[in-house]
């Protein structure tokens, strides 16, 4: 039993962590929290299922098309929901614009796909058990993503430019960094990470509309608690959340698990609004 809780918990945790990273990547380049993070994650599963199961494409083609769609979605989100409201960031219009885009995506999925959960095709032909792909695929995706982002920011010019933008947007622009271009790249990247998450989690969570709001919330919890912008916080927080949820689920039932997560979320945030690892707020006057 304990193996099941562990494997489920870690896999679920990896999914939350990945959505958390999706939030982070968008936030870093634009200071925008986007309601689309979990929605795009949900679409990863839905698109994968459509390409592979419905249209009968080979797995690799379906995967690549999903990734492409994710990048495209990211660009659209940047153009529609982020760019127009950046000028007045202090008015928090992005909360509304990203909410609107997220709702539009959800509703399109409900109409053109299904409101019910649809099974996701097997990606790699390996049988069930503890080494079931539904567990290791999300974990693998998480490791690759974190490793990839780390490599990017340490060893490439574009990665360093990202760091510069995330650290100080104005200074970065003053240095001549193409802020808008980098923002577009980062939203495309966030789109890709999002759909890869949904794709990798397809076996575990199915292709389901309900995953959208779910991932939006549970993906946000680890980044909020860990401190916005910190990928390490997202991974640690995500894994803890996944394990905790599975255990509470097993021992006390699903409602208790949800309530407990919610209470912890609120209490920690009320005590430390900037997150456990975040830094204090900027000056106001």
């Amino acid at each position, binding site marked *: 039993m304990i193996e099941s809780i562990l494997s489920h918990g870690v896999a679920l945790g990896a999914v939350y962590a990945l959505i958390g990273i999706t939030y982070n990547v968008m936030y870093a380049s634009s200071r925008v929290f986007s309601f689309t993070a979990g929605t795009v994650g949900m679409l990863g599963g839905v698109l994968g299922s459509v390409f592979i199961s419905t249209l009968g494409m080979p797995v690799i083609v379906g995967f690549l098309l999903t990734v492409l769609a994710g990048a495209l979605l990211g660009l659209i989100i940047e153009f529609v929901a982020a760019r127009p409201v950046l000028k007045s960031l202090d008015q928090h219009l992005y909360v509304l614009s990203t909410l*609107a885009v997220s709702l539009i995506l959800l*509703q399109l999925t409900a109409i053109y796909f299904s409101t019910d959960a649809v099974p996701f095709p097997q990606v790699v032909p390996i049988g069930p058990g503890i080494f079931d792909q539904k567990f290791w695929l999300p974990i693998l995706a998480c490791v690759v993503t974190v490793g990839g982002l780390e490599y990017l920011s340490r060893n490439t010019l574009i990665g360093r430019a990202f760091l510069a933008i995330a650290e100080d947007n104005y200074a970065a622009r003053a240095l001549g960094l193409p802020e808008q271009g980098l923002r577009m790249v980062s939203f495309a990247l966030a789109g890709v990470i999002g759909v890869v998450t949904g794709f990798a989690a397809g076996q575990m969570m199915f292709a389901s509309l309900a995953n959208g709001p779910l991932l939006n919330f549970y993906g946000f919890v680890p980044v909020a608690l860990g401190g916005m912008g910190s990928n390490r916080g997202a991974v640690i927080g995500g894994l803890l959340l996944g394990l905790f949820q599975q255990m509470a689920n097993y021992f006390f039932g699903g409602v208790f698990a949800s309530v407990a997560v919610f209470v912890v979320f609120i209490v920690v945030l009320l005590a430390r609004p900037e997150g456990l690892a975040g830094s204090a707020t900027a000056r*106001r006057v």
Partner: protein
Amino acid sequence: MSTETLPASNGRSWLEKWLPVILLAVVGGSLPLWGDEFFGTIATRICVYWVLCAGLNLVVGYAGQIAIGWVSLLTVGAYAASALVAGKVTPEFHPYVALLLAGVVGALFGLVVGLPALRLRTFYFAMTTLGFSTIVTQIALAWKSVTGGGIGIPGPLLPEPFDTPWGLYFFCLAVAIFCTWMTCNIAASRYGRSLIAVRDAEVAAEAVGIYKPRLLVNVFLFSGALAGIAGGLFASLQSYITPEAFSFDLSVLFFIAILIGGRGSILGPLIGTAVLTILPEFAAPLVQWSTFVYAVLLLAIVLLVPGGIAELLDFKNRKPIDQHREIRPRPELLPKIMGTDTPKSLLDLKGIVLAFGGVRAVDGVDLDIRGGEVHGLIGPNGSGKTTTLNAISGYYAPQEGTVTVDGADITGLGPHRRADFHIARTFQTPRIIGEESVIENVMVGGNAFGHGSFVEAMLALPRHRSDEAKLRDDAMTALCLVGLERLADVRADRLQHSELRFVEIARAVMMRPRFLLLDEPAAGLSVDEIKRLAGLISAIRAQGTGVLLVEHHADLIFEICDRVTVLNLGKVLASGEPEEVRTHREVVNAYLGA
């Protein structure tokens, strides 16, 4: 200039203020004459939704809190009313009593859902309301003994004569009209203005003594109560409720109806609620697409018409205003607002130290402001002038040193508590509520002198009405004082920069200041305007008020100051009579130049 009667501000006209109530009463009341029963059911739904939205409007439209998951309160209210009438956990209650109790339960939950807003930033708060709404649905599913789980429970049936569809309709309409009347009262009161002030100019709101937590607690209780009552009515309308009835789409409808309507308006959200409720009913294929349409509308509103329906209906502020206007202050009016007996107080700073990280922005400053004196504070950029000001008005707590008023230590008091000591201020960049009229901006300054409680304002009781009359009179006098009376009813964001500086002074005067802190009031003013400003400051001094003047215009400083303190690198470089300071060698070297 004779001492004629001052022009009165009609403010919002009577019709403008009560239009939502009248509209609801006339259109709603006449509905049976021109609509059939199908219409009646939709109209009942609109009334129920509006009861919730009327309260939510104060949270979203006025206080600017992004509360997305408000459907959770509808759920709580609906189950509370149904369970109380059915006697699930308590003895059976009469439906009316149950409805009121649903309001009480809703108010408590409104507080629970809302309180995180006091600490959390927008997106975080939005997420908590979302999380709360999913939790409530899950609990409704799981708590079978009370909610009936997925099978559901019957909603309360109202007694005669409200047990027919039209009966229920008129009951809901009456509740809706009453709730609209209450929100209109609140919106037009000092509480409504404070909410918008907190939303658009939080720092300035604190400076006039508005305490955000207490204000928001009132609003969340009120909004929660309305949502709870709406829930009870909703249960009666549905006649049978299951958790599925409280979909997230409904939450989206409420939230978007308000934003489409426009922030800071009641008529707009009322129209928004009606339109969004009707939309899917009259176009059958739209049902599936309704949330999609709402979302597209939301996006369009955010990107194209941030002011919503209310902005489209705001004809008054599209009239051009006179381009060649002059600010002509009338300092002789000052005693009309401040009286003639402002006590001369002493504000004393001793050894103030304020460091940000390793930078000691203020490094052991001693300074006193005496009643009836203008004290100039000058120095190069970054010498700590504004930081000193902020320490006095409480935005930063100094790490060392004390701030006292007539011996009373106020060092640790929050900014909103400084209004009690009649410490008023203006800001380097004017902090104005752009979407409110000029006179409303000024009225905010007198906020601390209101006596009526939130409930008194809600029910328009006499104490509240006399508050309002006095505030409006005083604000008009203050506007005449600074010479802006002709712009009283214009939206503040249409004014020029120099005019905003005078609006801030008018707002500060409303606090009957014993101390007035002016942060670069002459910046951006023409030579003539600076002269008038000087006259105004002198008149305020003559009232017995102590003025602290932070300025770069050396002429102004040396013309009107009784004493001058020069800061450099966070320390006092020189202090004394203007003449001494002007010829002080180090001051000349560091700042004034030869």
